[in-house]
């Protein structure tokens, strides 16, 4: 037990096997023989300080990372689940930031939390919000950038999401659970849910997406041109003109939420040939008014329809 490797192996195994009063039952006797004791404290008492701190520290981290899951389970069950999690998935990253990385997957397999089938997805949402909080920065596309794009350019414009954007799918309305989860488990019915989670300034937001937004955002995430995004929406709404208008409105909403950056495609990448294009046009007055808190999708958004030769045409013409 004097060799450094043996000592460290026995030390960590001793303190990380069981929390609370059970901890000392896991202490390696050979390790205890090389720990000094005195009249005030036996070697086991001294080692126990490290055991208690190990569990308390990581429990605290997981409670901070998963406050809604913790609230839903209550103190005792959450502690029990954390203990099982840390035993099954000890931390393997130098930064404590990643201790909870596999918690959602663990919950999906956990028998104790089976009565809460939405819990793994709620945990995924909490983890996603952490990931978004410190995801990479990127200068977001602004409304004036959008206005500066000539209508003739729009078919080949490629808009990409900022790094601080994630899409989460769940058979449960986890955003509602997230909002309500300060008390006991809410009675929630399954409801197919597609969330986008993003950072704007320092704040993390989330919003459910309807099928149109989901389809369009999937296209954007995959690197589609604006024309291809319109085509993707057309498969959903049937009408090319409506698809173009919807796509343009979505772009304006996303620009308000600061979730887009622009990457221009080469002309050869533009495969979709379209007669109609909807040019996103933000009302300049609205932009000035809402620029600082552009997080609402309720704002009036105007869309001007043009033919691809950039001549204004009648709506619905």
């Amino acid at each position, binding site marked *: 037990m004097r060799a450094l490797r043996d*000592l460290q*192996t026995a030390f*960590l195994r001793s303190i990380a096997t069981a929390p609370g009063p059970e901890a000392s039952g896991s202490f390696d006797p050979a390790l205890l023989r090389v720990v000094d004791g005195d009249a005030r404290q036996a070697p086991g008492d*001294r080692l126990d300080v490290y055991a208690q701190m190990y569990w308390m520290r990581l429990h605290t981290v997981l409670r901070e990372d998963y406050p809604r899951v913790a609230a839903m389970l209550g103190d005792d069950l959450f502690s029990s689940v954390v203990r099982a999690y840390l035993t099954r998935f000890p*931390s393997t990253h*130098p930064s*404590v930031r990643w201790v909870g990385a596999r918690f959602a997957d663990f919950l999906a397999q956990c028998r104790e939390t089976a009565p809460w089938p939405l819990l793994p997805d709620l945990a995924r949402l909490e983890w996603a919000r952490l990931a978004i909080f410190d*995801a990479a920065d990127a200068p977001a596309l602004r409304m004036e950038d959008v206005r500066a794009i000539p209508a003739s350019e729009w078919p080949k414009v490629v808009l990409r999401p900022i790094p*601080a954007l994630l899409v989460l799918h769940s058979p449960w309305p986890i955003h509602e659970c997230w909002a309500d989860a300060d008390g006991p488990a809410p009675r929630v019915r399954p409801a197919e849910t597609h969330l986008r989670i993003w950072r704007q300034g320092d704040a993390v937001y989330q919003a459910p997406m309807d099928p149109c937004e989901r389809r369009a955002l999937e296209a954007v995430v995959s690197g589609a041109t604006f024309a291809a995004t319109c085509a993707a929406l057309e498969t959903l709404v049937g009408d090319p003109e409506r698809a173009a208008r919807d796509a343009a409105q979505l772009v304006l909403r996303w620009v308000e939420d600061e979730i887009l950056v622009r990457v221009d495609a080469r002309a050869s990448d533009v495969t979709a040939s379209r007669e109609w294009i909807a040019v996103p046009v933000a009302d300049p007055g609205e932009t000035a008014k809402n620029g600082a808190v552009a997080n609402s999708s309720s704002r009036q958004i105007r869309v001007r329809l043009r033919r691809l030769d950039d001549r204004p045409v009648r709506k619905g013409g």
Partner: protein
Amino acid sequence: MAIDVLHLGHGVGLRTSHYPRVLDGTASVDWFEAISENFMVPGGRPLTVLEHARALAPVVLHGVSLSLGSVDPLNESYLRELKTLIQRCEPSWVSDHLCWGSVGGHYAHDLLPLPFTEEALRHVVERARRVQDRLGRQILVENVSSYLTFSHSTMPEWEFLSALAERADCGILLDVNNVYVSSVNHGFDAAAYVRALRPARVGQIHLAGHSETDTRLIDTHDGPVVPAVWDLYRLAVRCFGPVSTLVEWDDHVPEWDVLCAEAELARAVETEVVGERRARSA
């Protein structure tokens, strides 16, 4: 040989509760110490805060996960991320702890104690050298509070720390509170610890509060510095002269003014002791 760092004055740890003051530019202090791992992230608020802090005062990086004493291989991706952060924020210096924190790839996220043996010393010296090579700079190594000692240790902690500094050519971040906590827990002479260190190696001092139980002191960083630790700090300044000093306060973090008042107390102690030294030598 010595550690080549500036005297930055009397600073405080950069903690989340005071981020708003950092962001609005009202956090006035000599210097900040940032926990490296909190800023080893791709982006977002932490890095924004760090940039603002740098605009207000010098910043140093203080790590908790280097695991200098671990038998695991050095974590190369951790070192790469640390180097990226160093390049980004240009800290006045970088420090971590004399401890181990992982084995077999399992991280305890704690500052675990080493036996003070020649085997452990050789191991830590070799790793400290490699870390300094990777980072391209000297590091400071901090003594930790401990709650147990090993019966096969062959030297006192201060001898181990001094030998590490000389053989690896690194600096010492002397945590005066940790010296005091460990001295009470293990019954050694805290003053002897401080006197044993070579002044040229001591690049920074930490001050902090601790808690007391029936049987031991715990390094909780949750309150003001106690009188016995101020006395030990006086001795440290007498021995080393003025050294950049930082107040750590991690739990029950007080209002900014209270935190800064603690740093100002350290300044007053340093001024008083340095004045006494000058008067004696005049």
